[in-house]
């Protein structure tokens, strides 16, 4: 079984890797290098300042789900000055280390919402100057497990009580429009990319030649589009908001022709053109519960599908998930807004997305799309110590975030904030872990682990269930 799984993961990575090699101008490796460089610079700056005492923080005793697929039961996550120093068992901790006991709980990387509304206060852009790190929506964001969110073209950390260094990337996207309603617009955009790409080719030639011929004129920037240029240079990511299959195909062709990896938001009919999008190296932001019936006049497949995420995943397309309501909705309808982000992800699992990919869709994948995966998205040594401690599977509908930690500092405690404190308070929650009649552990719906696996595993489950049932009867 394990072998099969490994094989599958290999295939998956291979599928991921392919488009990268096919793209000449931009690849994520390049991105990461760039980011690292920036980071080094920042670190240098910090060194210039007075060195404050090191700040040590550790989460101990929890089952650590690193987000990379590994689970370390009862391990310690140690951080120094906000960065993860060590994830291991029996870790030496300096005596001044602040610790958070997560025994009996799970530890996950902080969730990354690729977009949200209101979690940063009423600020728009200029986050360093406008963020409200005390607003109640930020508490609710952290209570959901979100520690980083995209907003506009920025990736911002939910750094509560602080107005410093919360923006980790402020130049993510160049947004383009590609609509069947405007053939002219499509033509123009293609021309822009064509001219810009031509300019870039000339420029690179010029760069080579100018070393010998010093008086050679620089190629003209006439007809060069700034947004296209930054996309082709790999400085920003091209983003489209499209749902129709033929538009998605158009974007895929455009991206392949000019060699960039588009991000497509919406992507309702993407499941019908998954292979084409996969070949174009597209990344997709979607809402599994989107509902749009197929047009009755349409002969081919179309409309929304609950399987959208799963199908795209199988085609090697990285997926980030957003809920249908990007803001916080406390009006009473539960389960559709940003504070129920993991619930929305549950619907992708329903459609067949493997649980690991589902977790990644709100952690490392959005982090990669936003070019901040070197900082957030998984628990790895050297990354930011942004994590959450939950009382169960983060994707389970009854799980609550007990603690949230950002930059190695505890910024949320369920018992301390008023929102959820009264729901299953901690000591009881820890005790009552075993009993809940209606809720069986979800049967794995990973297509890789199909038929044969079920037989073996379920017999074990049966035994447990019966024991449980007996217990319950005794209680009754």
């Amino acid at each position, binding site marked *: 079984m394990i072998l099969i799984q490994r094989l599958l993961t290999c295939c998956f990575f291979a599928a991921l890797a392919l488009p990268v090699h096919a793209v000449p101008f931009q690849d994520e490796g390049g991105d990461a290098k760039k980011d690292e460089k920036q980071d080094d610079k920042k670190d240098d700056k910090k060194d210039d300042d007075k060195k404050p005492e090191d700040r040590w923080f550790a989460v101990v005793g929890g089952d650590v789900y690193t987000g990379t697929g590994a689970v370390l039961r009862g391990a310690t996550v140690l951080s120094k000055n906000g960065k993860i120093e060590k994830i291991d068992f029996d870790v030496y901790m300096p005596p001044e280390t602040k610790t958070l006991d997560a025994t009996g709980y799970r530890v996950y990387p902080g969730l990354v919402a690729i977009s949200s509304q209101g979690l940063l206060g009423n600020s728009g852009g200029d986050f360093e100057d406008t963020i409200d790190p005390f607003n109640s929506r930020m508490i609710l964001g952290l209570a959901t497990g979100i520690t980083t969110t995209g907003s506009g073209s920025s990736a911002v950390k939910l750094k509560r009580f602080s107005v410093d260094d919360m923006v980790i990337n402020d130049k993510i996207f160049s947004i383009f429009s590609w609509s069947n309603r405007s053939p002219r617009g499509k033509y123009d955009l293609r021309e822009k990319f064509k001219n810009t790409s031509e300019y870039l080719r000339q420029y690179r030639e010029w760069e080579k030649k100018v070393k010998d011929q010093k008086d050679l004129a620089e190629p003209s920037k006439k007809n060069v589009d700034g947004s296209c240029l930054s996309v082709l240079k790999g400085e920003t990511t091209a983003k489209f908001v499209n749902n129709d299959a033929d538009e998605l195909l158009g974007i895929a062709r455009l991206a392949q022709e000019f060699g960039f990896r588009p991000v497509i938001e919406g992507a309702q009919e993407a499941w019908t053109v998954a292979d084409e999008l996969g070949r174009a190296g597209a990344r997709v932001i979607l809402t599994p519960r989107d509902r749009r019936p197929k047009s009755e006049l349409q002969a081919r497949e179309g409309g929304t599908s609950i399987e959208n995420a799963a199908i795209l995943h199988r085609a090697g397309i990285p997926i980030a998930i957003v809920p249908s309501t990007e803001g916080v909705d406390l009006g009473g309808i539960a*389960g559709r807004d940003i504070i129920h982000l993991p619930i929305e992800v549950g619907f992708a699992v329903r459609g067949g997305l493997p649980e690991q990919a589902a977790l990644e869709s709100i952690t490392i994948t959005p982090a990669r799309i936003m070019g901040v995966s070197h900082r957030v998205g998984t628990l790895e040594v050297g990354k930011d110590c942004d994590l959450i401690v939950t009382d169960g599977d983060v994707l389970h509908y009854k799980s609550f975030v007990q603690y949230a930690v950002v930059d190695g500092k505890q910024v949320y405690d369920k018992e301390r*904030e008023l929102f959820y404190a009264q*729901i299953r308070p901690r000591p009881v929650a820890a005790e009552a872990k075993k009993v809940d009649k209606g*809720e069986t552990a979800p049967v794995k719906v990973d297509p890789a682990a199909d038929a044969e696996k079920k037989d073996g595993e379920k017999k074990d489950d049966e035994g447990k269930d019966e024991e449980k049932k007996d217990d319950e009867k005794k209680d009754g």
Partner: protein
Amino acid sequence: MVRALDERRGARPRPALARVAALALVALASCASSANKPDLSPLGPGEEGWALRCDKILTADADDNVYSSGLILVRGSKIAYVGPNRAIPAGYKTLEGTAGVAAPGMVDLHSHIHSGGFGDVNDMVLPVNPELRAASALRPSNSAVKIACAGGVTTLYGIPGSGTSLSGFGLIYKTKTNATYDETVVQTVGGMKIAQSYNPERGAGDLGQTRAGLSWILEDVNEKAIGATRQGRKDRALENLQKIHSKELPVLIHCAGSDGFTAASRMWKEKYDTRCVLSHGCFDAHKTAQYIVAAGAPINAGPRMIDFFSTRDGAITGVTGVYERAGAKDLSVCTDSPVMPQEELFLQGAMSARYGAEGYNMLRATTINPARAFGIDARVGSLEVGKDADIVIRSGDPLDPRSRVELVLIDGRVQYDRRRDGQWF
């Protein structure tokens, strides 16, 4: 029955009496269903029967029986056996794809998708419309109904909207995916729909602009119906309303907040002692939980499952949990579809559980409880011998969004098979 009603009208019935009556009714119903003995005889010639072997069966019966690795026998349209695995009697065919968790088809008492969407649900001319019937607007197996089926919802009480105080009579139907009117409808007149407050206010011109006016409008039409019964007078417009007062039919009441909740309980439970179900109970209504529960009318909570603004104590309160802790009998949840998508009825249960209600009880709140509240539990709401074979097989916990619906049987026939039909939801 009529005579008894007349006597009761003279003296105002005490809530305690009403409760006893309700309890008796409930006891009767549950006795009737659990008394059925399994039928393990072989199928006769021409008879059709299916055997379902499941990893787990959540019956939602009176004893909350849960079978790990069990068997369900479906004989014709009814359940012939539910229980531990055993030999399958002769004649039964084994149904494929039934591994997973079997649970009763879900029941929603507050649904507006019978006409296929938002439209065709409200006649907004007169404030009371006791002569209207939602059944006239039914589009069997419309696309919303089909997806509801794929979401594990099998029985719906399709009702007119809440634009007028008495908007008419709803129908009880099943979510069969390819059926005629007769095949899909359980009861053409299944109950009445009342809007106690809020929504009708907006549409009202003169009388009925306030709660006082709305109450009078409803009282007036009720007294007319009671008068017609007493005089033995035939009035076509009132004949169904008369059945409400003779307890032949239940009534679902839209009452959003605490005021509507209280007004509805006072009018329909305490004053007229009808078989009323109080729907919504959102916003601040949970503050009246103790009173409503004591008065005895079953609560049908939703579509808003949480309240934040009315308590002003900074807490997000799960309303279902409040009713549950107050001891509400036959507590159910609703989607008010299409306010919430019909197929997400389970999510209403899940959200109730998330915000403080007990998990298994929320499975009941989407299956047997609404059936009991509406008196249709002899046919639907649980997996018990003799009941309609409305069975949903899922890959896991019925309340978990991650659990896929694999197979849906209604009246013993496969309506949705994920592997055959593709995944609709």
